[in-house]
């Protein structure tokens, strides 16, 4: 193996208006290595990779691929230079087969037939060489996410990628699937490929990479040999101060049941049962965590309890009243009247109207509250005052309630949602993915607030695909798989046991 680095970045600078997203970045990626890049959201990782893949041009600085200066103007050039990218959100056509997806954009001529048979052979070879088993004639929509991701990797390899960039690849995977991915990366490395792994999960960095570079606020602050560093050091480098990796909390003192769910079944618009006969309760003063790989019914469960989705059958007891969800008309406004707060999983799609000013989002869902109205009209000064109070209390930055919500960072947007839902003093708080896409500093803050809610005697139902988060926050853990609750465990339970439950390995009836 030669000593020429696979990729070398020299003094890369990139600004978006006043934001200096990448500042004087130097990076050397050795050929045949797995190189991790960690950093908080907004640290500039994605920008840097986008420059490498030709989505953006650097304002200043050089990109060297294989020791040669490269001008990467678009992704086509990147591919021709042997750079492949596996995006966080898969770029696959659902109703195409694996084969069709792989040759998409590389059909090799106006007629498909010739290219297809060649591609079929090539795919077979790649599958064998790298242990990337996927049925070539399967439809994408029939494949689990783990396999879909392999198709993405195959796509890149098919185009002759020598350098593979993976952007947050494990977000949608079970622990077992993630392990499998890491084994594939290892094989790729052994075959001489170079892997760039972008992630914010330090554990993964420690597990698979050879070298790790840390980015903070647009700068490359350190590069370490993985064997010579620790999670604590990396976390500190990322944030710029020492961080509490564990959530600090006292034992819970649960009291009376505040939310009781019995035999809840939900069918989605395609007629598929997504929540199957689920029963559990949440008591005052405890956090109940629902663990599971995304797509196993947790989202639907949360949305049904919040009144957004209609249940097929099942009862809910809240504030002492029992409601038959199949027979009674329930909507989110009613659930709010019953003191149920809801921090939705996807703040962009559901929790916020990003085109609104901050203060307008501060009353979303509570806009019919008479305190915000003066006769026929909204009492704008009063709404703004309330928003300003929340901004101060939750340290939302920048502290400007007139600013468009889209212009806040992910963490601050999440704080806007949390402030809105928590400040109404709900009896039960439903929380979905509270720290997805949120930087470490804000994660700490959000976790603290959730514990405070618990200690103030509220019932919290937490859904998260981050097992660490569930284990750190929850007092009881329910594991969901395929729409069912397959087990209840204490948060101290061994991670591999929870992982097996999440993968549906040994189902038991709770």
């Amino acid at each position, binding site marked *: 193996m030669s000593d020429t680095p696979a990729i070398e970045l020299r003094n890369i600078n990139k600004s978006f*208006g*006043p934001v200096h997203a990448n500042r004087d970045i130097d990076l050397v990626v050795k050929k045949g290595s797995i190189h991790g890049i960690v950093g908080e959201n907004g640290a500039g990782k994605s920008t840097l990779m986008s420059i490498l893949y030709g989505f953006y041009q650097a304002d200043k600085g050089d990109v060297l691929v294989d020791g040669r200066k490269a001008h990467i103007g678009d992704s086509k050039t990147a591919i021709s230079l042997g750079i492949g990218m596996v995006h966080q959100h898969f770029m696959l056509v659902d109703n195409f087969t694996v084969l069709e997806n792989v040759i998409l954009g590389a059909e090799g001529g106006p007629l498909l037939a010739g290219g297809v048979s060649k591609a079929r052979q090539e795919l077979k070879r790649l599958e064998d060489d790298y242990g990337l088993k996927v049925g070539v004639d399967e439809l994408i929509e029939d494949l689990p996410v783990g396999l879909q991701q392999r198709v993405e990797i195959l796509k890149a390899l098919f185009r002759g990628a020598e350098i593979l960039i993976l952007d947050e690849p494990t977000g949608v995977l079970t622990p077992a699937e993630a392990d499998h991915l890491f084994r594939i990366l290892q094989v790729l490395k052994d075959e001489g490929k170079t892997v760039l792994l972008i992630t914010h999960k330090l554990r993964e960095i420690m597990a698979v990479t050879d070298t790790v570079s840390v980015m903070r606020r647009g700068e490359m602050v350190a590069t370490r040999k993985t064997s010579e560093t620790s999670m604590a050091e990396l976390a500190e480098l990322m944030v710029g101060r020492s961080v509490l990796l564990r959530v600090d909390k006292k034992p819970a003192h649960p009291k009376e049941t505040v939310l009781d769910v019995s035999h809840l079944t939900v069918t989605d618009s395609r007629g598929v049962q997504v929540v199957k006969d689920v029963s559990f309760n949440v008591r005052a003063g405890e956090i109940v965590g629902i663990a599971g790989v995304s797509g196993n019914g947790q989202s639907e469960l949360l949305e049904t309890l919040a009144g957004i989705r209609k249940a097929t059958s099942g009862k809910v007891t809240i504030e002492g009243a029992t409601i038959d969800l199949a027979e009674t008309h329930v909507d989110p406004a009613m659930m709010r009247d019953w003191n149920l707060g809801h921090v939705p999983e996807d703040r962009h799609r559901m929790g916020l109207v990003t085109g*609104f000013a901050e203060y307008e989002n501060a009353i979303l869902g509570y806009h019919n509250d008479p305190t915000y109205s003066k006769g026929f009209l909204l009492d704008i000064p009063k709404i703004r005052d309330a928003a300003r109070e929340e901004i101060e209390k939750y340290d939302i930055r920048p502290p400007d309630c007139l600013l468009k919500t889209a212009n806040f960072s992910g963490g601050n947007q999440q704080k806007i949602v949390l402030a809105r839902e928590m400040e109404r003093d709900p009896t039960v708080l439903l929380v979905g993915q509270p720290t997805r896409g949120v930087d470490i500093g804000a994660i700490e803050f959000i976790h603290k607030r959730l514990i405070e809610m618990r200690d103030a005697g509220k019932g919290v139902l937490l859904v998260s695909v981050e097992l660490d988060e569930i284990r750190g926050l929850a007092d009881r853990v329910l594991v969901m798989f395929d729409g069912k609750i397959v087990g209840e465990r204490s948060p101290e339970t061994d991670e591999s046991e929870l992982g097996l439950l999440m993968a549906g390995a040994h189902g038991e009836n709770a």
Partner: protein
Amino acid sequence: MSSGQLPRWVDFGLIPVLNLIAAFLVSGLVVLLIGENPLEAVRILLWGSLGFGEGVGFTLFYATNFIFTGLAVAVAFHAGLFNIGGEGQAYIGGLGVAWACLALDHYVPWWVTMPFALAGAAIMGAAWAFIPAWLQAKRGSHVVITTIMFNFIAAALMNYLLVNIMVKPGSMQPETRTFEAGGKLPFLKEFVPGIDFGTAPVNLALIIALLASVAVWLIVWRTRLGYEIRAFGANATAAVYAGISPVRVIVITMLISGGLAGMMAINEIMGSQHRLLLEFVTGYGFVGIAVALMGRAHPVGIVLAAILFGMLYQGGAELSFEKPAITRDMIIVIQGLVILFAGALEHMFRPALIQFFTYSRSPAEQAG
């Protein structure tokens, strides 16, 4: 911070002006091609629309129509609905006006008839928008399709009513009898002394249109209903999360939109024609879409854009009168170009401006 931010004055001032300039440059080329002097054409257009009292009067008269139809499109816009049925809603709105005027004009003065005519116009316009709204809300039938089909139904229905039912007895003209004084809105010149609008029919409806603009602003930005409309339009999923009923928002928004479009008939029927006749809407409903786009769906912008289109209508008429080479059809071409640049090519200059402003701003802000 997103990189797509522009200062407000650029967004609401510079971009519309640039679009307009582009439209006029291309129009100028067209005028040049047919052998006329574009500068001369602009001079006539401006003089014809603003140069004398009667011209101003006609400009404002047309602008009144555009304010109503522009507001109608804008309100629906805020809920993410594209109501292109303003044409039909205004047409049917005429029925409401005519019924009120025909029933009352013999017995009461105009100011008693007016509220009934207004209500009639709004209710009929809203009713015509209701069925598409209901189909959209309950069945997911797209309002773009249904409202445009309802334009044709409205045309056929009015044809039938005017030819067979409402026609003045003994007349061959498919129109109602002319209203008496009790069914005529006063012309503006009658109560604004000192201004001579000549024969221009600009009337009290202009004031109603301006009041409607204020009302739309209040509803959209200052009420709970407006909050729900905007939330639903910007992010329907978040609106549902917030407990906002999509059915309610769609139906109410379309009723308001249709009502505003219907009110256009006040200006034409009660203010100018003083009888119900065929095809009095003649495209005002459609141009309302361009007015709303150009006015950024904001009442202030809509009033300004409406005046601009009023100028184009009136100045264009003068132009084709003065320059026989520039025919009526040429004027429509120029109007079409303005619509194209202001509406369809709305985003043409935006990327370049964003780049310009981010580059020119960043050094200063980084120093600070």
